[in-house]
């Protein structure tokens, strides 16, 4: 298997700033086609493609669109569309690749989704540190406005028009969670909301809101242009399509690689140039800080939502952090726990206190002897389970993922 490109099909081939080059590469064919279809048929195509949210949770993009569409009638009230570009999961840099190389594709995806659900106003929420992405997206938005595809001048039979704006994050990992992102968009602190209700019913300003990750939107033009069946030819039955994997760590060519879902870790590492200095793999952390450790025994596992779940793991954002045999696992674990401690917002006490406790325990473990280490790891696991069970948002439920997968797969590597 090699690379198969859908979201990155134009990356490096056209100038990111050029609307003309984007159009010449087939850009806007999909949206033109969507405009001739009934909105419900657009939703149906996305649903039938089996596209799953690429932000990490893997929820069906079709269902999300359907729920937002159904929560109020097309002409009865305001609906919003939001692109989640607050990429902050450690080890993940795939959304940046789309925004920096093909910003027009992302916006075309948003146009298609907005047409499908009847949204007239949208936001692209980009993390404040992504200077280049912000500039490229702004340039692309300006192009769409100038060409008349965004804003009032755009005229169709259905009087569809969409306004899109950039909003910036300011260094909060939690704002990558959709309801917290909405709080932040409303000008507030990034505290998570209780769900349900989900954004599809009560989103921005309590209106129905469709929130998708950058990569999810970037798949929609392909699906509309070529049909759901063509999309399903890629990937696995339950995880169709392609995925951008952000490969980092001890490989020769770290970077973003878009392949079909279901590629094996072994092949992916080969695509990334193989192991640096030929030192063998000790472990791979799949999916970011809120991701799962796998050992060198799992190199042939297929990277898709289901097979990762089978070994008690997650695919997450597609971050692939590769560690070679010389690396100290406890140093790495301590950095991850430090991350959760820093990013816990403090709203739920079990998470606020518990993540600090885990960070401390991850430091303590470095000075223990082998017998004590095992007991200490068990203690960390039960602490993390307690946090997960008693916190509101996904952050509290995250530390248990690396810790339990560490205990499950890496005990013999200590």
């Amino acid at each position, binding site marked *: 298997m090699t690379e198969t490109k859908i979201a990155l099909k134009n990356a490096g081939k056209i100038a990111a700033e050029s609307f003309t080059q984007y159009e010449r590469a087939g850009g806007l064919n999909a949206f033109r086609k969507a405009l001739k279809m009934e909105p419900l048929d657009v939703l149906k195509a996305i649903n039938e493609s089996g596209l799953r949210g690429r932000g990490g949770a893997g929820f069906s993009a079709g269902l999300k669109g359907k729920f937002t569409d159904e929560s109020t009638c097309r002409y009865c009230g305001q609906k919003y569309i939001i692109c989640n570009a607050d990429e902050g999961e450690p080890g993940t840099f795939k959304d940046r690749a789309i925004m920096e190389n093909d910003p027009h594709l992302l916006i075309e995806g948003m146009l298609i989704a907005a047409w499908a659900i009847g949204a007239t106003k949208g936001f692209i929420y980009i993390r404040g540190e992504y*200077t280049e992405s912000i500039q490229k997206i702004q340039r692309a938005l300006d192009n769409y406005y100038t060409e008349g595809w965004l804003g009032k001048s755009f005229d169709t039979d259905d009087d569809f028009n969409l306004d899109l704006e950039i909003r910036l994050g300011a260094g909060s990992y939690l704002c990558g969670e959709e309801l917290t992102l909405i709080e932040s968009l409303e000008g507030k602190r990034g505290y998570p909301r209780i769900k349900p209700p989900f954004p599809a019913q009560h989103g921005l300003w309590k209106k129905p809101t469709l929130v998708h990750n950058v990569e999810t939107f970037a798949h929609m033009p392909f699906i509309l242009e070529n049909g759901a069946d063509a999309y399903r030819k890629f990937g696995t039955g339950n995880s169709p399509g392609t995925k951008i994997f952000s490969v980092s760590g001890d490989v020769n060519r770290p970077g973003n690689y878009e392949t079909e879902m279901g590629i094996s870790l072994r092949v992916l590492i080969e695509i990334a140039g193989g192991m640096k200095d030929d030192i063998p793999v000790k472990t791979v952390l799949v999916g970011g800080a809120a991701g799962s450790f796998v050992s060198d025994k799992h190199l042939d596992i297929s990277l898709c939502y289901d097979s990762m779940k089978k070994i008690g793991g997650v695919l997450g954002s597609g971050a692939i952090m590769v560690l070679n045999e010389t690396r100290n696992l406890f140093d790495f674990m301590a950095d991850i726990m430090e991350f959760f401690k820093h990013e816990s917002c403090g709203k739920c006490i079990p998470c606020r206190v518990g993540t600090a406790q885990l960070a401390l325990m991850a430091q303590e473990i470095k000075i223990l002897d082998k017998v004590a280490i095992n007991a200490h790891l068990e203690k960390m696991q039960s602490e993390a389970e307690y946090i997960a069970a008693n916190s509101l948002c996904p952050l509290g439920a995250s530390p248990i993922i690396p810790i339990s997968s560490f205990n499950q797969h890496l005990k013999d590597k200590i």
Partner: protein
Amino acid sequence: MQIQDILKKHEASIDNLLMILHDVQNHSAQSYISESDIAAIAKYLNTTKAAIYGVVEYYSMFSSKPRGKYVIRVCKSPVCRMLGGQDILNSIQSTLNIPTNGTDAEKRFTLEVSECLGHCDKPPVMMINEDLHVNLTPEKIDSILNHYRQNKP
């Protein structure tokens, strides 16, 4: 630029708050949002100072305390740390003779650490204000900092 001139660029709607805060801080010679800025923003958006202050303190990119003209943010994600991030941090600390979160005597640099900056393919990385610096080595630090000392007074 005066605070009122900055405010005028943005519609007086609370959902613009983060954009306003970025704008105000970027125009501040000391990279921060002062108490009088907070009061002016609260008045402009017709809300309380406490609401603004809460937002400033929550987000790690904002500061309500004066900092250097250049804010250095060294990435401390697991990947950057594994591939030399700590050496970079140490090197900046000793070059500027300041601890993490400290500001140098000339009030030119403040050193901070940041969670993952999203450039794990080119570790270790840091940002200085809006500029990104990748594939760092301790040897490169002096010349990078000198660039900010000389070219951008």
